[in-house]
């Protein structure tokens, strides 16, 4: 497990390592990349949902006996960072059928070399919801931080944001720990470092390209 309280890493089982071995391999074709990434994303979503609260309730069983059960508490929505983050939307919908999905487009400004916000579309009532922020790679944390700023400006509570990513760098984790200590970061694996080009090492390449194009 991770050493940070609000950073939750999936249990590093053999099965999970096997899935990562496949998606890291540059010889893995897109069909397999999508299939095995989707499996990891599903595990991330289940782990994320487990962070949500439940409350006690009485239910009626088919025999008419009441039973001390539990029900889910709080509404959620997903917000994906275009384009790679959209690959995680289906995984969320597999667990929450009609979940609302907001989108944020952030791109690097060619002149200033800093991330710039291009497009935001979020559900109206997002301040009342738990937000699953979706981006498969957490590298420098630059665009994810900007997305979080957008959410906070819209009135989302920091402790109600869950940031789901497939792969994280220690640097990216550090950024979130410092800037947004109340956000729960749910990640499948934390890699060794960033290289001089700000790629995660060993990483898995450009997630969006591999999921959509290559």
């Amino acid at each position: 497990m991770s050493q940070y309280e609000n950073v939750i890493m999936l249990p590093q089982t053999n099965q999970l390592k096997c899935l990562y071995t496949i998606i890291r391999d540059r010889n893995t074709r897109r069909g397999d990349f999508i299939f095995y990434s989707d499996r990891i994303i599903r595990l991330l979503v289940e782990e994320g949902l487990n962070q949500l609260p439940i409350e006690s309730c009485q239910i009626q069983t088919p025999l008419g006996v009441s039973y001390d059960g539990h029900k889910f508490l709080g509404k959620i929505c997903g917000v994906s960072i275009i384009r790679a983050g959209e690959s995680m939307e289906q995984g969320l919908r597999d667990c929450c059928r009609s979940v609302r999905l907001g989108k944020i487009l952030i791109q690097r400004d060619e002149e200033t070399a800093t991330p710039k916000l291009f497009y935001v579309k979020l559900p109206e009532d997002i301040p009342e919801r738990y937000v699953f922020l979706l981006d498969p790679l957490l590298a420098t944390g630059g665009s994810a931080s900007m997305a979080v700023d957008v959410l906070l400006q819209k009135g989302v509570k920091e402790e109600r944001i869950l940031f789901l990513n497939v792969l994280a760098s220690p640097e990216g984790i550090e950024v979130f720990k410092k800037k947004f200590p109340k956000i729960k970061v749910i990640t499948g694996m934390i890699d060794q470092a960033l290289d001089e080009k700000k790629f995660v090492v060993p990483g898995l390449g450009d997630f969006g390209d591999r999921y959509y194009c290559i």
Partner: protein
Amino acid sequence: MSPLSSEPPSKSATHTDLQANKYIPPWTSPYIIGVAGFSGSGKTTVAQKIIEQINEPWTVLLSMDNFYKPLTPEQRELAYRNEYDFDTPEAYDLEAFYNCIISLKEGKKTQVPVYSFALHNRTDESISIYGANVIIVEGIYSLYDPKVLALMDTKIYVDTDLDICYSRRLLRDIVERKRDIEGIIEQWEKFVKPSSVVSVKPTMYNADIVIPHGSDNTKAIDMIIKHIRKQLQKKSAEHLAHLARLGRMVAPINFNNIKALPKTNQLLGMKSIILNRETSNDDFIFYFDRIASTLISEALELVHYSPAPSDIITPNGYRITDGVVQAQEVVAVNIIKSGDCFMRSLRKIIPEAIVGKVLIQSDSQTGEPQLHTERLPKFSSGCKVLLFDAQVISGAAATMAIKVILDHDVEESEIVLVVYLASETGLRRILNAFPNVKIVVGNLSAVEPKEGQDNDTDWWMSMRFIDARYFGTD
């Protein structure tokens, strides 16, 4: 000092435990009935009436015709000219017949050859028989070989007058088999009649019961059926008592073999949805699928993995040094139809998985589990078998399914039972019979529950409801 008194009493107790541990399915000692008589005597009709009346879930009719010896080209020529003797005991492969019966008697999966009368040879096909509770062996020489007689529980001889047999045979061969009348008469005079008198008739003395006037004798057939039913009830009672003993065994459950899902918020919430009578079918299916995915993922942790080759490179050119690959094929087996609830989730996780099926149902009156059908693939050596059942209540069906899988040459330690709701009694029974089987369970009840804990008397631990709700058949 006698050797018996020197033995400490504890040892004999252990011995009894060991015997109780071993699960003996009903087909390990199938009830075998032999039916003999002249050609045309009505053996097959008698056998079919018995099958209809005893109404056992898995009854097999085995004809000795399958055991004709393959003919040489010369013999085949004779056969086409009606000059080959098919009615002498020598025409049958009695050794193969005996081996087949003994294999069935031992409860093994048995291949029965298929003989083609058109080719006068064995075909490449064979019939596979496994798990039958009752086997009826029918043929003119089924009561001939003393070794085979010793394996039969009831031996019946259908005694019909030879001239009646002759007229029936004439009719059958002309009308059904379109053969010419001269050939039939010649064959009858030359082979059928002498063999019948010399070799078939004496086997009547090996029978327990002789039915005069053959298949028209309804009174005799009724009596036979009553007798067989009584024997089968006795057998069924023994099976049930045996299963009960397995559940009562006080040996503590080896929890190392049981992996129960943690009670996460999601699983607690989903359990309430599954148990709530207000839940729509839509929601029930959706949430069961989600639970099933989690259970399957958990089960896949038990598959063998090995280090990946060291030449895996990422798109950015970095070498993967700690890669892992799956080292074992996964084969699924569903207990129809409760295990079928896992199918959709399984297909999402392992789209190409091979799936075998077994249908096991409990007798509505006695509750005895009965194997109705099994369609299992050839298990590759060293594969992992995931056995799916949505609920384990008494554990009888799962115990039987595991035994079936073991009989198909799968290692006990490579079987993983995947189940959502399980009673402790049921799992105890399974592990007492098969201590090396692994179990992945969503909700495990306790026999001695603490406050707020599930227990074996909770209604969902004593009622099958998941498959009925999942498939909308309640």
